[in-house]
């Protein structure tokens, strides 16, 4: 065996003493060409898929961009701005959205009282931020604010009150984004506590309590929201004594709150089931009663786990608020529909523009919430990651 010793190796011409300079990687194995080859054209079938996908993008994106951005009309006083009279193509009529934006936000809420709505929006934003920011100080105070102070304050501000000498505004004047947010917030504010109670009831040891909870949850989850809204609309006045006729806006609110509670109950139940038995036993061995155990030990943990689920339920609820327009409530969708019959802005593109505006609004809200939910999920999973 020829084992070269050090000096010999140095003397031999073909043994390298210094390291080679690093070469740039071959362009065909690294870099964008390689990336394109690997990710887009790795096989004939893959290349075909790429071409199909590119065709889909080509046939969808440019026309939409042309309609909503390049050919769009951004300024104008009335429909003449958005009519194709000069022969040029006319895209979305954003001037119409600009002209109607306050109607979309406030509905027919009296013009000089809209500052009250703005305050409610501000109060709501504070409450939501307090609840959603998991490291916020005094979150228990935040919960009290969001579930007790905020609803009362907004009720007084929005509707007015004779005892506090705040001018009354009839609910039939409310509309637009105000009502959309109102319906979804009422849904969440009522459904969370009521849903927790139902979830506890469903896991209760008392057979009657369990039965009642199960029946309520399964019936409500088994029927479409629209039937619940119809029921609230037509049957609520029937069930109350003859001289009491609930407010037109209150009826769907009751329906939405009941509907959301059943879904929330199932989400919370998932959290309750995920808490290990030892937590229950530990709490009991400390001598805590049922409500103390739930309030101090179980629910804080269970609710934390199901924050993503709660947010997802809320996204669904937020989208479902559009259904109140079917029973005649002026939410955002209904106000958009209402402006479409306005002759001042009657053009062939108005409808598409109005729908696009509503779609963008809902998309931003829902997408934002789903991002938040994902972030919380990742944060909660951080403890489990190794």
């Amino acid at each position, binding site marked *: 065996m020829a084992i070269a010793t050090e000096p010999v190796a140095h003397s031999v011409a073909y043994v390298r003493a210094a390291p080679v300079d690093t070469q740039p990687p071959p362009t065909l194995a690294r870099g964008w060409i390689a990336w394109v080859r690997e*990710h887009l054209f790795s096989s004939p079938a893959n290349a075909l898929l790429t071409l199909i*996908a590119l065709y889909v*993008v080509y046939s969808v994106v440019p026309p939409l961009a042309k309609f909503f951005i390049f050919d769009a009309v951004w300024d104008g006083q009335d429909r003449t701005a958005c009519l194709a009279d000069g022969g040029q193509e006319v895209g979305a009529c954003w001037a119409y959205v600009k002209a109607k934006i306050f109607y979309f936000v406030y509905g027919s809420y009296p013009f000089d009282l809209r500052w009250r709505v703005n305050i409610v929006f501000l109060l709501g934003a504070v409450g939501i931020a307090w609840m959603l920011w998991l490291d916020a100080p005094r979150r228990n105070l935040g919960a009290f604010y969001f579930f007790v102070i905020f609803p009362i304050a907004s009720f007084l501000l929005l509707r007015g009150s004779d005892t506090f000498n705040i001018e009354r505004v009839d609910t039939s004047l409310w509309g637009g984004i105000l009502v959309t947010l109102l319906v979804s917030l009422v849904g969440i504010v009522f459904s969370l506590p009521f849903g927790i109670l139902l979830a506890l009831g469903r896991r209760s*040891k008392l057979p009657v309590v369990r039965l009642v909870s199960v029946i309520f949850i399964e019936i409500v989850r088994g029927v479409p929201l629209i039937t619940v809204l119809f029921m609230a609309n037509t049957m609520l006045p029937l069930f109350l004594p003859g001289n009491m006729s609930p407010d037109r806006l209150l009826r769907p609110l009751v329906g939405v709150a009941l509907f959301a509670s059943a879904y929330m109950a199932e989400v919370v139940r998932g959290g309750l089931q995920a808490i290990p038995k030892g937590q229950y036993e530990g709490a009991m061995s400390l001598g805590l009663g049922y409500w103390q155990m739930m309030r101090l030990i179980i629910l804080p943990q269970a609710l934390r786990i199901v924050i993503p689920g709660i947010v997802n339920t809320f996204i669904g609820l937020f989208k479902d608020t559009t259904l109140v327009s*079917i029973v005649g409530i002026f939410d955002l969708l209904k106000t958009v529909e209402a402006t479409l019959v306005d002759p001042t802005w009657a053009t062939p593109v108005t409808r598409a523009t109005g729908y696009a505006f509503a779609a963008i609004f809902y998309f931003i809200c829902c997408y934002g919430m789903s991002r938040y939910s994902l972030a919380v999920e990742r944060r909660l999973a951080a403890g489990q990651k190794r």
Partner: protein
Amino acid sequence: MSSIPQTAAPPRGSLFYDPRVRGLAYQLLLVLGLTFLIYSAASNAIENLRAAKIASGFGFLSTTSGFDINQRLIAYSAATSTYGEAFIVGLLNTLLVAAIGIVLATILGFVVGIARLSSNWIVAKVAKVYVEMIRNVPLLLQLFIWYNAVLKPLPPPRQSLDLGAGFYLNNRGLFMPDPVFGAGAGFIGWALVAGIAGSIAFRIWARKQQEATGRQFPVGLVALGLIIGLPVVTFFAAGSPITLNYPSLRGFNFAGGLQIFPEFVALLVGLVTYTAAFIAEIVRAGILAVSRGQTEAAHSLGLRNGPTLRLVVIPQAMRVIVPPLTSQYLNLTKNSSLAVAIGYPDLVQVFMGTVLNQTGQAVEVIAITMAVYLTISLVTSLVMNIYNRRVAIVER
């Protein structure tokens, strides 16, 4: 403190602190509260109905309805049909759109879900954008867009879009050739049944053979041949008994052919695209839930890609996919009630809309409608639970 006597029976606490007594008391309270609530609601309702002079009971189901429904799967006419028949028409329309919607949404959802996991970057991105766009916009708005902004502005019948093969699209809906069954068309139906039965028999035989000898048979190909081939052969053998009735333009509208109303098209397209986005996410999660080790182990056993997917990955993914998929099917069925917003005559539109307005019998109408949806939900959950039990992991 003196020591506690060891042998004495536990002291009898006050009844107030006895958990069993307390439990009973809570439940009694709940029952009493609910009874009071239901009783007062019922008595108020009876009072209010009497004051409004609205009849009660289910007698209205056999009175003549007096309104027309454009899309019907059974014979129905305004002059002679009853509210009960209107109910059946609405129910069948709901089931029709739900059944077709479930099939199409499943196909589209699986395609998009698998596309999201594709190694092809642009395919995955297109699928992702589709899912995010559709999931974050309310279904009702999407239905309005499909119906009012896409289908309504289509040209009138005279300027119909000709899709070829006798298909025309215009603002009155989709017109397509209508099959006319002549004498002997029944044989084709029987041939189809025979083909399906033969395929099942062949599959059982092939499985037994494989278990006994290890030999595999091309079950899929044989089944395809039997199910498609037999009816085709019968079709020609019976002398082409099925002919197509093509729609043709007469005056201002089409005559002949099959007309699919724009309301149905809009509702179906809206429901399918919306539900498919959710199914895609479920499929994606299900496939991701099967660990890579399973694929690698299957490959190391010598299975090729196709059998690996078919025999190892998909059966395990289905276990994760099926429960949420069921709830999406139920969601689709329940969401079909949004038909009321665009005027498709489904159960809610016909029964809770028109019939409720005409009779005023809110309690009965709403109870019947809710009972229908509840029954659909419960039956579906039951069937899916049975399936789920079959595919669930059997542990110890």
